[in-house]
Structures are given as structure tokens and as C-alpha cells.
């Protein structure tokens, strides 16, 4: 089966579908195209863009799940089903999943631009912590397993190393991460979260580390989306003076 996370030449009649979402391009004048995305009987969005002499391409890649239905949160909470219980001073690796969205980009030699994003899953949100000092997080329920198992185009595979450094037995119910930290990797149409590990510090606090490297050998970082993410991180650095760390401290419980 031809992979769908790819770059496409802009041409009349281009059609790509992701379950109920149908993406089409229509040539309306010499260099202008209309982008449409239909969801069942409803046309959700349309954008006109130009492509002179084939300079522009359309790219479709997985993106961090913070665009839909709008940018309400930049944190993700993965609830583990079932929760995992760890003995003192132990470590174990398990497979779980996290949500992704699908981004549509127009790309030229110099830069790229996201014209649309959509999700095949129904987004729900939760509050992590208290209203006065907590975070709104995109919620995802993940089945824990010893083997990789994802819903294609909807989830990314996560190979999580759990490490309990505390002297007590502990149960991990959820993992919270900052989506600004997240890098995604591709193997065909299968999406992976970067190499990651969760360290239980004590009975209340855990730290999630995202290690800026592929979780498996041979995986390639998502090309166009990665550039957008890096540009976004530079924007944050310039605006706040702080970089995006590869560590998220879960201080409101796990």
C-alpha cells in the first residue's frame, strides 16, 4: 500500500483520503489551486494557493496533537490502561500510544506553511493539577502492551522506559508531556514518539525525558513538520528567553 505521509506534486484532481476525510486539489486558473477537505458530506475548509511552474508541493505529515479543534492546550495526558505497578528500584519497557494530528503543508524551496490540520480521533481535554496552577491537557487513553499496536493515522507508537528510583512500590496511571517538546519519527506511515523514559523520583513526582533521538534505529524524523516545530521552539526562545527543555516534571501526581 502506498504511504500517505508524503509530499505530492500539485496537480488538478489530486485526491488523498484518510478514513472519512477526503483531500482534493482543483486547478481553477493557470497557477491557482483550490484545496478542499471534505468530512462525510461537509466541506470543512478550502484555501486557494499558487504554484508557479511546479515550485510548490503539497505535503501531508503527522503533527503534534495541539491544533484541533483549536489550540486549547499544549500538553498531552496519556492515561494508561491498565496502570502499571513497579517494584522499588526497577525498570521496565512497555509499548503505549499517544495521539497525533495530520498536518497539510504547502512547501517551496525556501519555506513551508501549514494550511490545514485535522484529527481522526475525537479530542477531549482534562485538567492536570488544580485550576489555579494546573495545565489543560489533550487526553488520550492508551492500552499498555508488550507489542507495538497503533491506530494508523490516529496514534503514534510510544516505547516508554519506566524507571522507579523510589524505595517504594508505585503505580503509574498517567503520563503528561509538553507537546512543544515532542519530536515525531516515521517508518512508512507508522509514527513514533522520540526515545523517551519516565523516571519516578518519589511518591508524588515523576519526570518525563524526551531524548531527541529515534526510539528505533533507521527511523527518520518527520521532515516538514519538524522544521515547523523547530521554528516554533525558536519563537518561544526569542519571546520568553527560555528554551524548550526535553524534560517535563509531573509535579501533580502520576
Amino acid at each position, binding site marked *: 500500500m502506498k504511504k500517505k505521509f508524503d509530499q505530492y506534486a500539485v496537480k488538478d484532481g489530486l485526491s488523498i483520503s484518510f478514513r472519512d476525510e477526503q483531500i482534493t486539489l482543483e486547478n481553477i486558473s493557470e497557477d491557482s489551486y483550490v484545496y478542499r477537505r471534505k468530512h462525510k458530506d461537509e466541506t470543512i475548509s478550502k484555501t486557494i494557493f499558487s504554484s508557479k511552474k511546479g515550485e510548490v508541493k503539497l505535503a501531508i505529515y503527522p503533527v503534534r496533537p495541539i491544533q484541533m*479543534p483549536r489550540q*486549547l*492546550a499544549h500538553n498531552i495526558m496519556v492515561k494508561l490502561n491498565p496502570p502499571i505497578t513497579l517494584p522499588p528500584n526497577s525498570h521496565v519497557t512497555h509499548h503505549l500510544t499517544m495521539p497525533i494530528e495530520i498536518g497539510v503543508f504547502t512547501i517551496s524551496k525556501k519555506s513551508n506553511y501549514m494550511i490545514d490540520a485535522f484529527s481522526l480521533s*475525537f*479530542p*477531549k*481535554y*482534562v*485538567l492536570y493539577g488544580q*485550576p*489555579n496552577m*494546573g*495545565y*489543560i491537557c489533550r*487526553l488520550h487513553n492508551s492500552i499498555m502492551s508488550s507489542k507495538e499496536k497503533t491506530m494508523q493515522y490516529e496514534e503514534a507508537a510510544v516505547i516508554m522506559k519506566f524507571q522507579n528510583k523510589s524505595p517504594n512500590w508505585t503505580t503509574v496511571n498517567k503520563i503528561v508531556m509538553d507537546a512543544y517538546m515532542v519530536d515525531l519519527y516515521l517508518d512508512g506511515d507508522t509514527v513514533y514518539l522520540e526515545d523517551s523514559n519516565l523516571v519516578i523520583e518519589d511518591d508524588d513526582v515523576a519526570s518525563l525525558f524526551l531524548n531527541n533521538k529515534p526510539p528505533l534505529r533507521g527511523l527518520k524524523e518527520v521532515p516538514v513538520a519538524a522544521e515547523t516545530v523547530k521554528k516554533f521552539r525558536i519563537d518561544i526562545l526569542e519571546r520568553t528567553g527560555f528554551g524548550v527543555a526535553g524534560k517535563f516534571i509531573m509535579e501533580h501526581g502520576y
Partner: protein
Amino acid sequence: MDWINTIIPGLNFTAGQLLFALIVIVVGILIGRLARMTSSRVLSSVMSENTSNLVQRIIYYSTIIVATLAALSYLGIDFTGALLAGGILGIVIGFATQSVVANLISGIFLQIDKPVSIGDPIGIIDEHLYGVILEINILSTSIRTFDGVNLRIPNERLFTSKIHNFSKYVARRVVITVGIAYQEDIQNAIDMIIKMLNENSLVLAEPAPLVYVDELADSSVNLSVRAWAPSTVWFEVRTQIVQQIKNILDESGIEIPFPQRVLWQGDSQA
């Protein structure tokens, strides 16, 4: 420097002293400029441009005034009379500008205490005013009311009022009371409302929405619907939920009763 003594009797200083006094004033101006530049960098990130400019000017001119007074004092000019006159003038000006000073002080405390920030949707309860903070200046604060009117409120009134800041916390609770008729199946109505809330993307899954019988009222069984939403979409969620509750209760044939009273007419043959 006898000519000085002829202009202002009692003054007697050398050309060197005068030169030194001038140097003190020039150094004061330079320090003032340096202080203004430094404060510009520091203040621009913590307060609005207008307020920052005003504070910079105050710092600049205060430095020059202090340097000038020091220089004149060095030359032997006696300020006792001027201070007495200035003190009386200060009292007069103080009374005249009482509200201005109160607003100035409140403006400074608004910057320090930060009960509101630019862009916050707020409600000033005492004034029955609701809107978004546009600008916090040293004397007044500009608010764009929700009906699109620009409102300038003196800082003293803002600072001493009860302020509801609707975006201070990340999540807010929506509370709605809905009455259903006494003959309806309460658990069925609760289950349907909970299902509707769970299907609304913007209603938070945690804290979980809650629906319970709140009151056995005169005309209806009142259900309290409580759902949390991100503060940024609270109003949208509230309006959606109210309409959706009405729709699902209508679709299920569950009656939302209006206030009613049963009248018993006495038996005419009795």
C-alpha cells in the same frame, strides 16, 4: 565673583566652586539619562509602554532636580525659605491633586500586585462593568467592554474594587440549573445530560462533569449541571450546554415545566 553678590546678596563663591557646581549638574543629567536607559530595558517587559515612559521621565527629572539642588546647596544658596514656601505650596498642591496622587499610587500597586494583566477578561463587580483590559497606565486603566465600548477607569477605583479575573486560572466551572417535571425519570435525564457533556469536546473529562438532583422545587425537580471547561472557551461551552440540554430533553420527551399552580374549586352542592 563679586557680581553675583550684587545680584543675589549674601552669595559668595569662587569661579572654581561655580565650575564644580556646573559639573555636578552635568553629571546629574548624564546619570539621569543612564538611569532612564537602564529603566527602559527593565520596565518595558513588566509594564505598558506608556507607563514605562512616564516612570522613565520621573526618574530622569528627579535625578536632575536632586543634582541641581545639590549643586546650588554647594554654592551656599540657602533653601530654608524656599523649603518653607515649598512645604506650604506642597500642602496646597497635595490637597488639590489628592485624587491624582491616589490614582498614581494605585497605578503603581496595580503594577506590583498584578490583580489584572493586559488581555484579561475581567468583571468589576461594584461597578457592574465587564470587559477586557486594554492598557494599564499610571493614572487610569482602559477596558474594552464586551459590548465594544472603550472605558477609562481611574486606577484607584479599579484597585479598591472587587475584581473578577475570568482568565487567571486555566479552568472554570459552568453551573446550570435545569428543572424537569415530577413525573419524569430522573436517572434517565441525568444519564442523557452526562452523555451529552461527555460528547462535547470542550467539556473537560477531568474534573468529570456532575449532574445531580439539587432541589425538589414547587413546579419541578431541579437538576444541577456542573461541568469544567478551559477558561478561554468557558462562555462558548456554557452557551452550547444550555442549548444542548434543551434539545436532548425535548428529543426524549422530558418536560421542562413552567411554574404552575393547581387550583381546587370547592363543591358547589356542599
